[in-house]
């Protein structure tokens, strides 16, 4: 192997014809026989070529710059710059009056909107309604009835003000529901389908995704049997059959629909739009697909549109759960990975799920 510098010397000696006949024919021979040598030679020749054309170009540029400095730019300017067109000169002349006219137009528009009440915030802010149940309204209408029952059975009077749905995250008493259900809560109780009520507390909230994680802290609570459903990590498909189970009233209610858009209210990519009948109280309920996977949490619906409900996507739920600092928990949250609902028909799925879905009652 020759060193680079020897190679350069040899090539240049050949190039500038400083070799005798014998040397140069030896050089040519080696090029023919040794392909890597030949490649190095042509690489060097190419390099010299680009050096040469670099020099040429630089010279040309310098020559052109000299010529350019000699050009009478003013004459060219006068001849070739386009005069501003009629529209432009008209605009320049009447700029001021146009500005006045435009500001009057804006003022008139704004005041019209103001006087017709378009700016009343409530009118359009509340397009999205959260589905927690305001107990007061229902209580008033049914007061008489409840009082009768209360007298007979001596149960603690139900004085919760708001309610929603929640469902089990793991068998050791962690639940997930919507943040807006438990917002501003003094105390929270969850009640299962059998009517047993347990005290719970909020251990984590994520207002951006509208998610809250609760833990049952009641000593009477015994661990649930292993969860039958799993959480879907990927996005659900448009048009997929979905259902939800929740507590819009004191008994469990089933609702069925389909996934109608992969984004939620106002294009929110953290939620699905679902065409499903839901009512106040459904908030926080699981949105399930055919195979018994949780694909979202029902969170609200659009007030002025028919059949548009929204659900927070399950992968954002999982993300929030991942964000919970593990060492702040008394017990680990083990997310279930084994789905025992997949092969079952709908009614069997619902029967198996009922025990894991709770009414969330909020007192404040």
């Amino acid at each position, binding site marked *: 192997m020759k060193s*680079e*510098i020897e190679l*350069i*010397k040899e090539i*240049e000696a050949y190039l500038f014809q400083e070799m005798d006949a014998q040397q140069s024919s030896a050089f040519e021979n080696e090029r023919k026989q040794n392909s890597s040598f030949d490649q190095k030679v042509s690489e*060097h020749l190419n*390099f*010299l070529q*680009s*050096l*040469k*054309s*670099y*020099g*040429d*170009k*630089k*010279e*040309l*540029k310098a*020559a*052109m710059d000299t*010529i*350019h400095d000699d*050009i009478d*730019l003013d004459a*060219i300017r006068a*001849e*070739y*710059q*386009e005069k501003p067109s009629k529209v432009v000169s008209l605009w320049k002349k009447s700029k001021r009056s146009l500005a006045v006219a435009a500001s009057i137009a804006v003022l008139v528009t704004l005041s019209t909107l103001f006087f017709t009440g378009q700016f009343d915030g409530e009118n359009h802010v509340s397009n999205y309604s959260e589905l927690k149940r305001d107990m007061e309204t229902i209580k008033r209408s049914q007061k008489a009835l409840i009082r009768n029952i209360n007298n007979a059975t001596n149960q603690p009077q139900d004085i919760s003000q708001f309610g929603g749905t929640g469902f089990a995250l793991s068998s050791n008493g962690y639940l997930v529901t919507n943040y807006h259900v438990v917002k501003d809560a003094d105390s929270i109780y969850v009640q299962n389908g059998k009517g047993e009520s347990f005290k719970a507390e909020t251990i984590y909230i994520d207002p951006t995704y509208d998610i809250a994680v609760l833990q049952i802290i009641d000593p009477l609570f015994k661990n649930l049997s292993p969860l039958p459903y799993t959480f879907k990590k990927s996005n659900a498909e448009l048009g997929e059959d979905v259902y939800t189970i929740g507590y819009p009233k004191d008994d469990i209610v089933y609702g069925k629909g389909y996934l109608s858009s992969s984004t939620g209210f106002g294009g929110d990519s953290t939620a699905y739009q679902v065409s499903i009948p839901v009512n106040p109280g459904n908030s926080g309920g699981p949105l399930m697909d055919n195979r018994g996977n949780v694909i979202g949490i029902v969170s609200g619906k659009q007030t002025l549109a028919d059949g548009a409900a929204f659900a927070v996507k399950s992968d954002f739920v999982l993300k929030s759960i991942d964000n919970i600092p593990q060492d702040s928990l008394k017990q680990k949250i083990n997310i279930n990975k084994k789905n025992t609902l997949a092969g079952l028909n709908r009614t069997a799925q619902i029967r198996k799920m009922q025990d894991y879905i709770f009414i969330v009652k909020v007192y404040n």
Partner: protein
Amino acid sequence: MSSKINYSKPTDNEIILGILNNSSSTLLYLYKAYFPMIYQLIINNNGNEDDAKDIYQEGIIILHDKIKSGDFELTSKLKTFLYSVCRRLWLKKLNHKSRFNANINDYEDHFAVEPDLANHEEKDQQFLMMDKALLQLGEPCKTIIEDFYIHNKSMQDISEKFGYTNADNAKTQKYKCLQRLKKLFFSKEKI
């Protein structure tokens, strides 16, 4: 011949011949003849005078290279060729700035020149790389290399200019410089 060119309007073929012979009067004529055309194109399509100068000079370089490479056949007027090339260059620059999309007020006939430009872009890249490599090379290497390989000065002249005791010493120095320049040039190419 060159004195004639200065006074009568040369034909396209005469211009080509002049460029092949590195005639400075041809360049002078060519440059002055079509600059206003390109000036008009650039100025009235969102460009300024510096843009006009840059684009026009790039166009002339492309024409120059094409003639020098020997494969230039006169299928159109030189004027049309220059206009088409500069138009394409300017469109590209405009798109790059994304000020507006592929819309240009035309003043002359033009035709597609993409193949000519593809070649040019590569050459332009090499020019910039060489410029950078030479700058990094530093003195006296830069001048030695330029004197020998570009200005075709003899080793004798160079060794005198730099005070080497003999041409052989200067030659050794030149080889070392060239080796370093090669290294700089090819290391840039990989990026």
